[in-house]
């Protein structure tokens, strides 16, 4: 039984791929954060404009109108996030799939097949639910509805106590999720992407939207169906180091802390920030699921149906991941039918839960490892091949 994670070349390649994938995720998270900040700023501005009028007239109708306006802003934000998630899904799946295929190819000298037609990719990305079982838009809207209700409740409180607008804005601001720093990763080796934005594959066009590509001389890929548009987007995203623009509302709107009358200021003015709330968790979880899904599909396409579960074992490891660590998915499946029948987590492949750090690697009796130390390439080298 050959487990690919035992192969040094596989691990190095996959590590490079994962870092590239995380770059995609990071850029998406920052874009979502910017859009969220922008939306929150607009919410505060809308309140700022209408607050005094509502205070003077005590008009419930005006408050309802304000609530509707806030609802529209948040709905729009929900849509923006959904689009970003959709794009991230496609890019993550594609890069994970292609990277896994190449990793298998160069580790085992096996002719691998790759099939990522555009239609399939679109359908899979559009139709997939989040890990909570809800459609993404529905899930996001639930969070935004909750936020909208909190905003209106805090405004009603401010009206009831006749607070000035700065304090009312402060109260609304405290309803928003808090921001936290997204630290820049200290990577082993930065994945560099050439200006050409796509690797030069020795490929031939099969259809308009798919190509068959040979990724390397030693491991030609056959039957390659390819969504070039998504690939281009992924490469473009990798090539551009996204510069975060801080659009936090406290920078633009005068807000006072309702509890101490001090102006609200950003705690991390110079850093890349994301919002610490459920939507952020769901986006990351969804991304990880896409990556694992890409890995699995790439392997299965090439006849590898078993995988080894690789957990990171430390004092933060969940019990459900701990016992799965090192087992094949077939073994996990068997145990879930026997001694682990009552395990609350029934996952066969990672991620088993939110923030699951487990990964997987293909494993098969039919595979043979080859010594290709001289010719094996790292991920960025493969990505930039011409």
């Amino acid at each position, binding site marked *: 039984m050959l487990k690919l*994670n035992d192969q040094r070349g596989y691990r190095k390649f996959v590590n490079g791929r994962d870092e590239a994938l*995380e770059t995609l995720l990071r850029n998406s998270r920052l874009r979502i954060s910017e859009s969220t900040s922008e939306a929150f700023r607009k919410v505060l501005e809308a309140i700022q404009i209408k607050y005094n009028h509502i205070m003077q007239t005590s008009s419930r109708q005006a408050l309802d109108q304000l609530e509707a306006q806030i609802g529209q802003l948040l709905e729009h934000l929900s849509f923006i996030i959904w689009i970003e998630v959709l794009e991230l899904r496609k890019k993550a799946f594609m890069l994970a799939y292609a990277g896994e295929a190449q990793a298998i190819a160069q580790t085992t000298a096996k002719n691998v097949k790759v099939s990522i037609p555009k239609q399939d990719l679109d359908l899979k990305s559009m139709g997939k639910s989040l890990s909570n079982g809800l459609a993404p838009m529905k899930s996001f809207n639930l969070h935004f509805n909750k936020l909208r209700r909190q905003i209106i409740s805090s405004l009603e409180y401010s009206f009831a106590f006749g607070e000035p607008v700065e304090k009312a804005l402060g109260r609304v601001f405290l309803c928003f999720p808090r921001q936290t720093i997204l630290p820049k990763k200290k990577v082993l*080796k930065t994945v560099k992407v050439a200006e050409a934005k796509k690797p030069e594959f020795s490929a031939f066009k099969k259809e308009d939207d798919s190509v068959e590509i040979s990724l390397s001389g030693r491991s030609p890929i056959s039957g390659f169906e390819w969504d070039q548009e998504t690939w281009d987007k992924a490469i473009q995203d990798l090539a551009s180091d996204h510069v975060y623009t801080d659009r936090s509302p406290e920078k633009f709107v005068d807000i006072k802390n309702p509890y101490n009358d*001090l102006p609200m200021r950003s705690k991390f003015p110079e850093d890349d920030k994301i919002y610490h709330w459920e939507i952020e968790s769901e986006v990351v979880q969804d991304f990880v699921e896409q990556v694992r899904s890409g890995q699995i599909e790439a392997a299965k396409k090439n006849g590898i149906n078993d995988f080894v579960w*690789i957990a990171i074992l430390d004092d933060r490891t969940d019990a459900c991941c701990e016992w799965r660590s090192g087992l094949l998915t077939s073994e996990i499946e068997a145990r879930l039918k026997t001694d682990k029948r009552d395990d609350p987590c029934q996952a066969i492949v990672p991620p088993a839960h939110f923030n699951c750090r487990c990964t997987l690697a293909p494993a098969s009796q039919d595979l043979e490892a080859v010594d290709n130390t001289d010719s094996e390439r790292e991920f960025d080298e493969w990505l930039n091949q011409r």
Partner: protein
Amino acid sequence: MAKSKVAKKEASALQESDAPTAFKVLNHSKTPVYEEQDQASTIDSKFKDHCKPRSVPDLVALMESDKTIQMDARVFFHENGTGNAHLASLNRDKFIESFKSNKKRTFKESIDYFGGGDSGGNVVGGKDFTPLLGGPFNKQLYIYDYLKMHSQCFYAYNHDPVLHAAVQIIRDFALGRDWAVNCKNETALALWKAFEEVNDLRMMMYLACEELSIYGEIFQWWLPNNETRISYQVRPGQEPPKGLIPRVRLVDPSVIWDIITYPEDIKRVLYYQWIAPTQYQMYAATDKGQPVPTTKFIYQQLPANQVDHYKINCRSNEKRGRSDLFPVLGYAKRLRDSVNFSIIGMQKSTAWSIDTSIEGSQEDVDNYVESQKELGTIPNPGSEFVHTNKITRQYLSNEAAGRGNNSSAFDWCFSMICAGLGIPQQYFGTHLSGGSTRASALVATEPVVKKFEMRRNLIEQILNNMARRLFKQFGIEAEIEVTFPELVSQDRSTKLKDLAMAEMQGWISKERAAEIAAKELGIMDFNFKDEQAAVEKSEGPRALLANPLTTPPQIGSDNEEQTNRTAVSSDTRKDVRDQNGF
């Protein structure tokens, strides 16, 4: 006709000047002794403005100024030396003669009598007398006086509502809701918890705090030889069980008849002399096959190193402590009296009578009386009286008695008690407690907070001393940290705002701000890291992973064994190390 008034002299005492023991005299004259208005001119000018004599000399002067005033006084004499007491009846002349004839005898008003026996003055056992040749160690309560105080304070705690409340107020403020004990040494903390449990320390400190107030001192006896029960001359086989953790018991201070020290230094204690009969039990029992006596007389000396003695309200030269109630016992008696007299006055003021005039002969009067007898003393509501115009009935109320309902005595006594105890009137919840503003209540609170802080410090010291002794016994070097809840809550909102500002400005860390805030909110078991973890968990969104695909194992994991079992091979780890230059 001028209205006469009966002058009632309450009580006075006759005392020989060289006799330290006072005695009571009850002087009750029943005859009219002087005219209040009409004969004012005949009274000495000293009494023109205030006709009521307020002391024995005043009384004598009054009688001398007005020959018509008569007296029928019954006087208790108490002879010095023999201690014999007898009752004598003195008329006006004898009373004046007794007052003047023997210069060694003086009358003394026993107005400080507070129901505790035959003592006079506002101190237990007479004057705090310090003979020059006696030295400073005589400047304290002798054992009889001490026991008298003990008895009277015990009585006051149980029978006087105000003093009972005072003791409980002091206890409640000193102990607060409860105290928390922490210790950096976990072994020591576990030992302390066990010590607390076997000794029922919470209840012991609850009682100790009260007894400290009532008796003025407490004795904590660390039972010797690892014994878990107090034992005295038990039969073989009836020895109490032994335990690893030492047992501490409170010993009633009244059984400690003497604290035996070197004469020149009261702090160099040798023994505590315990003399007391035990309880008398009606029924006997056997234990381990042998009878257990129904009673014993304990006569033993507790070695000084087995006893922790804490005393309050005493000076450096005093061996024994004094009760918190000590200075106010007399006023407590007066306060109770004032309440009783007021109630009697009110009772009298509600009395009424019927004045009936009958125009007719004695026979008519007798007939009327006979007819009324059938109705009883108090006519039922709705009773109908049928009579001719010859009979006139008029209901009379007791107007004179109504004026006796004067509460100024209560106010004065109560003020004196509050001053003596150092507790504001507002704390007692009487009819004098209301009417103050928040500002005045706060001002009144300031001194009493200091008082309660002092008592709390003593409680803390007792706990610390116990911990030191316990840890020393087990060879552990540790100190406990005792935390009490805040005595008086300040304006918490303002304080928390200041705290938020300080944290926001970067003057203090978030952790420090959180810890201070937790104390303000009365959270005793606050741990910043645990709390943050709980907040993260409860906030809905999980802790965010910056790099969900390549997050390395946690460095410095507590569980090395687990970390070693990771599926990430050692080769990879080596690569990571090499490339990062670790």
